[in-house]
């Protein structure tokens, strides 16, 4: 078994499993089991191990940090279907495994957006919400003519359906640790290659023919659908708990590119926006100490 190390990274202190409607989820904890708990959610195409820098800092700040691999990600079960509602049900199952009291809900990217919706649906389960670059804003739609737009959509639709036709037989491509790290660098261009190599040894498994990311090969980045980012902004103003929103201003593919002006008028009472100049979407990985201090101060 290959385990690389990375300065500041610490694997969870405890692991356990949670079953929700038959879906088996991998749950991880950092910190004193008797410390006050908080729930931490990773982003899309990530896994709880991507919190190995950030979560220990919160744990050392006096919190029991509970995180889980989303369905299809990391060491959680691969299932037939994935959608937003199902991820939120899974988050509630992990919350239930902690206890009934309201606790801080902290999430990055997709994880932040999921938890924001959870706070809306179940306000009695959250004490505060911390959102790490996970508030969607309206993307700039290229100004293309109708005919070109039709062609673009046709390609997306056919490409997605072709992918679904082949999904039953798809497997992640094997490679060396370096190869998987460099593939991941396309999604994480600002992150240290040594960090990405470290992640391979957690988020991938070693088969006879090489390493493969554990994430379900039926999951595909991007796509189409009826969802609009402005709907999530409307949820923001309905939040009934204090919100800390942290935005990284360096635009990159995995982020929404949200800037503070996008949030004008949408922030709920008792909220704060913290802006990190020169930091990309993965604020908690690029600047774990800075972001952890912001969170610890807000939670205090």
């Amino acid at each position, binding site marked *: 078994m290959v385990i690389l190390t990375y300065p500041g990274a610490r694997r969870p202190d405890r692991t356990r499993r949670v079953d929700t409607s038959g879906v088996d989820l991998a749950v991880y904890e950092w910190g004193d089991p008797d410390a006050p708990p908080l729930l931490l959610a990773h982003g899309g195409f990530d896994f709880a191990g991507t919190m190995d820098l950030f979560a220990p800092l919160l744990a050392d700040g006096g919190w029991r940090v509970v995180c889980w691999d989303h369905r299809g990600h990391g060491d959680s*079960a691969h*299932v*037939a279907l994935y959608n937003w*509602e199902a991820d939120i049900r899974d988050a509630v199952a992990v919350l239930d495994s902690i206890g009934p009291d309201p606790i801080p809900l902290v999430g990055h990217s997709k994880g932040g957006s999921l938890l924001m919706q959870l706070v*809306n649906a179940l306000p009695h389960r959250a004490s505060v919400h911390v959102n790490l670059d996970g508030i969607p804003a309206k993307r700039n739609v290229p100004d293309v003519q109708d005919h070109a737009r039709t062609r673009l959509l046709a390609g997306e639709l056919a490409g997605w359906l072709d992918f679904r036709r082949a999904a039953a037989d798809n497997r992640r491509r094997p490679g060396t640790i370096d190869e998987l790290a460099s593939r991941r660098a396309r999604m994480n261009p600002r992150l240290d290659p040594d960090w990405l190599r470290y992640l391979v040894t957690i988020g991938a498994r070693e088969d006879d023919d090489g390493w493969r990311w554990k994430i379900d090969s039926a999951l595909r980045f991007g796509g189409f659908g*009826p969802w609009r980012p402005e709907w999530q902004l409307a949820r923001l103003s309905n939040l009934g708990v204090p919100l800390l929103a942290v935005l990284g201003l360096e635009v990159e593919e995995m982020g929404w590119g949200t800037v503070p002006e996008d949030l004008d008028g949408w922030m709920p009472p008792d909220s704060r926006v913290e802006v990190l100049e020169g930091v990309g979407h993965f604020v908690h990985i690029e600047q774990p100490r800075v972001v952890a201090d912001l969170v610890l101060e807000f939670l205090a």
Partner: protein
Amino acid sequence: MTVRLLHNKIELALHELRTGTGRPLLLLHGLGEATPSTLPERFEQWPGPVFGLDFTGHGESDIPIGGGYYCEILMADVDAAIAHLGQVTVHGRGLGAYIALLIAGARPSEVRGAVLDDGPGLAGGGPEPGSPLVLTLPPATRTPDPLALVELTRDVRPPDYAQSFVRQATHLSGLDQPLTVTARTRPAWLAAVAGEAGVATADVATALGWYAAL
């Protein structure tokens, strides 16, 4: 006769309701329904074979563990049937009407006419999301999967999103009227679809007559 088709981890039941030659008519049921056990009288006029597909979590198709339904996945269910059957004309009831629209836009060369008819699940969750709901249910033991009933009555169907599929069908199918609305009920998405160029309004018999003649 029923064949089982694999769509990712789900086995789908595709029922042959009547044998024949030529382009098949593919029936898509409504929310919570399944393919009828015998050919309904209203489809007897179709000159070719008639099939019915049970969507994921419905009829004799598999039930996924832990839900996660959305309409584009059911569109891909239909695409699995198209991969097996080749070109088809589709008739969709309720939820199946919305799925018929999606697949007509996404596979414009394979869908030779889509009939959008009344039935359960026609409206979906409306043009915008409602208040969020988190409902946890025990694993389903029989179809229809209760999580399918919950999630597919809450899926958002913006009119302009529906219209984008109409335009795919009209621009790329080569047909003058690739879609026909036969539904009397007109939720916002369907009202928008019915107002688009290339969308006919007729009764089922007339629509099937047009598409049979293609």
